[in-house]
């Protein structure tokens, strides 16, 4: 328990109305059954710094919080005294449209940020899940979240050119710059992408932007064999076509999504969803080449655009949360593109052996798999164990992103981090010597 005077001091930093300490309200900030004692929503960066100074003096642990959409990520926290919510750090600072860059506070939702950028016909080329649930820029950067369009644009590390961070001791520093090309000093923005709040609280970020493509179309093709599907993937990747996204849906996912989206594809098969955003003529010409390649490999498909297209991609990004409402078990795995068929076959086999239902979507150009599992706890545990071993055996990895506590218990959600772990721990120890930030959840 925090002592009364510390609580009082914390509350006085942000003011009463920005403080939550009532038990029933704290429940919304539950992480793996660990509840914080107080939730503070600072009004500005200086207040974040003040909180951290006090936390550091009193050795209080801190969980940075955006909109909580990815609060299930990571191992169970060792402790959680304070949650710092960035919800009032939601101001766009500067949009340098002619330089294709923008700087914002990190509590802003991606949705609000994009709306502001769209006014100048520009956008941040990130399409992670949870946009509808107001996922914040800070949360997306801290968890390195991304979506299908990473094929064309890359991930946050490609766009984050500068940031401002409040360190565990409350000091504020900036890294990178506000210009797209810069090699002055260490590239600290990269370190913070995917650092899960363990190295400081990201309070400001500068991104490089892209012009909004003029037009978009998506071709959905289904394949009776995984071999044909993969052949199509490899042909597309080895072609001159510039695809925006390329997604394989396994039959389970394909069936659910076809129904939801009136796709009229053969829903018992693997589907490829291929999106192209570009100038109109370039979209039309390339989509017709895509169609040709699919047909050559016995794929049968349909062309979609407009609202239907938008909804399908949203469903692909958010399927684990749309399809599975309770007791969700979600993993992210990374494999080489050439290993995708083997991974999908193994998943099918494990699903049969353990009587679990597994929905899979694979970013086919990147080898990133989103795997959602439904079933009995014990069967899921068994599946996870075998799936991780399989991924390791082919040079990939498996991270458990979300699961009920019973399943997380005794399973290291990150798996083997490799020979770099020692140096990562030294970096963490130098930035957060008392291990106050998200203790136990990551490095």
């Amino acid at each position: 328990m925090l002592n009364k005077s510390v609580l009082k001091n914390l509350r006085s930093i942000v003011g009463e109305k920005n403080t939550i300490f009532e038990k029933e309200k704290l429940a919304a900030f539950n992480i793996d059954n660990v509840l914080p004692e107080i939730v503070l929503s600072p009004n500005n960066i200086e207040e974040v710094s003040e909180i951290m100074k006090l936390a550091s003096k009193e050795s209080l642990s801190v969980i940075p919080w955006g909109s909580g959409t990815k609060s299930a990520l990571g191992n169970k926290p060792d402790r959680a005294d304070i949650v710092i919510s960035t919800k009032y750090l939601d101001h766009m600072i500067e949009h340098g449209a002619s330089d294709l860059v923008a700087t914002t506070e990190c509590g802003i939702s991606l949705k609000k940020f994009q709306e502001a950028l769209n006014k100048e016909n520009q956008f941040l080329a990130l399409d992670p899940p949870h946009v509808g649930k107001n996922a914040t820029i800070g949360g997306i950067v801290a968890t390195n979240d991304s979506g299908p369009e990473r094929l064309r644009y890359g991930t946050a590390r490609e766009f984050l050119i500068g940031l401002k961070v409040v360190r565990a001791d409350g000091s504020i520093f900036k890294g990178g710059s506000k210009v797209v090309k810069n090699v002055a000093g260490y590239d600290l923005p990269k370190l913070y992408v995917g650092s899960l709040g363990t190295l400081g609280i990201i309070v400001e970020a500068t991104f490089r932007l892209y012009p909004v493509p003029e037009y978009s179309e998506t071709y959905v093709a289904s394949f009776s064999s995984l071999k044909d599907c993969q052949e199509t993937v490899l042909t597309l990747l080895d072609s001159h076509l510039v695809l925006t996204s390329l997604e394989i849906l396994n039959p389970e996912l394909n069936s659910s999504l076809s129904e939801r989206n009136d796709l009229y594809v053969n829903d018992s098969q693997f589907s490829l969803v291929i999106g192209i955003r570009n100038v109109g003529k370039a979209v039309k010409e390339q989509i017709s080449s895509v169609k040709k390649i699919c047909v050559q490999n016995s794929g049968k498909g349909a062309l979609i655009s407009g609202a239907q297209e938008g909804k399908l991609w949203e469903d692909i990004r958010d399927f684990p949360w749309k399809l599975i409402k309770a007791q969700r078990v979600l993993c992210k795995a990374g494999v080489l593109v050439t290993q995708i068929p083997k991974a999908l076959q193994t998943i099918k086999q494990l699903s049969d052996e353990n009587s679990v239902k597994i929905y899979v979507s694979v970013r086919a150009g990147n080898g990133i798999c989103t795997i959602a599992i439904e079933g009995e706890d014990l069967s899921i545990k068994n599946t996870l164990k075998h799936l991780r071993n399989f991924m390791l055996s082919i040079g990939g990895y498996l991270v458990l992103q979300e699961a009920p506590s019973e399943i997380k218990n005794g399973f290291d959600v990150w798996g083997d981090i490799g020979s770099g772990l020692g140096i990562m721990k030294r970096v963490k120890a130098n930035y957060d010597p008392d291990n106050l930030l998200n203790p136990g959840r990551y490095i």
Partner: protein
Amino acid sequence: MATQHKTKSSSWKNKFRERLIEIIGKDGVISSEDELLAYDCDALTGYRIKPIFVVLPSNAKQVSQIIKECYLENIPFVPRGAGTGLSGGALPTDEGIVISLSRMNKILDVDIPNQRVVVEPGVVNLWVTNAVSPYGYYYAPDPSSQIVCTIGGNVAENSGGVHCLKYGVTTNHVLGVEMVLPDGEIIEIGGKTLDRPGYDLTGLVVGSEGLLGIVTKVTLKIIKKPEAVKTLFASYDNVEDAGASVSGITARGVIPAGMEIMDSFCIKSVEETIGAGYPIDAGAILLVELDGPSAEVEAQLPIVEEVLKENKAIQIKIAKNAKERDLLWKGRKSAFPAMGRISSDYYVQDGVIPRSKLAEVLGEIAELSKKYGLRVANVFHAGDGNLHPLVLYDASKEGDLDKTLELAGEILKVCVDKGGSITGEHGVGHDKKRFLSLMFDDNDLDAMNLIRCAFDNKGLCNPGKLFPTPRTCVEPGMKPFKEHPVQKAGMGEMY
């Protein structure tokens, strides 16, 4: 760098040399005075320091063993690729050794379907493209020294090139490295698969200027050659119009592969030396390269032409074939050597500004040129605001070099004032460390120093580079080092 490097006795040196020979053999240790001269500087030739030895390891294990010896004896070591760096990143340290990676020059794995290539650090940049080009692929970062510079050096400096506007710089193409830490431990970070769990140390190591360890293996991403390439050339009365064209093109939603501007001074010297067909009396020229699927390039071409015309382009040419395209680029690529013919000496500056501030910054550079009485020629990667002003001087004239450096420094201040950076691709190294504090305050530098200390608590790995003032490492939890007032006033140095 708190470690004090006392001059070592010759008997100590002999013993140390014997130990190095045990590790890599006699032909892997250079110790003769004549041969060491070849390693006393990189392409920033104004500073020279002779190392005690140069070692040429052939594999990661040897690198690790050498570094362990250095760690034991507190001997600083400096990694070196091809020595083409322009910021003195490979400048040896007094009483230190140089570890040259030139023998580690094998391409280890070419994996076309997964679009990955794994190389040793001594592999020359262009070899990567050569290895994959039969399959229709290439390695995107293309620094102008790409026929000699090495991937290891590119990783250290996070090298760019003329096509990074669209495709990014080295860091966007490096997926993982094997490296030897400054205490000799060999680690692997990142890899062929993406988003591996753990901090993105690869992103941190790329561009760390050889201060965090020695990279011994690099996993690169290769990309498919574009279906179509179109190069446009436009001439203008003045640089402002060329600059406005650049902003205009991106404002219309077109991101070319590269956009390059040269000013009148550069045009003249290039024309006089190689004859690229540029109009000799033009105030500025702009090269725009579009690439991608044919349909995309065809759609963008008229937009770009329109923007060029709107911004008062005098002459617009579109290269009809590869030969014409090569000629247009040849002029740009010869800009530096051409300067060498019209001036005995020149200093290449490297600064970045927001693209939209191009015209005002060029005006200010012209003012500075007048003020200092030194000629400044401008070439730049205009698309990403990366300027390369070339200050011409005469080294034999007393005081000319000092004046040049002062002017070049003033240019960096202008860049930072406009919200830019002191370096876009050449690195801080030895040359620009005193300017780093223009961009970063003490807290920012402390954050960087904590990284260095996590990797290199003894400060042996490429010491004396990047950081403006010596910074010590403290045990976690202790107060970070702050500069002593005496030091700050320039009245003393910390040892």
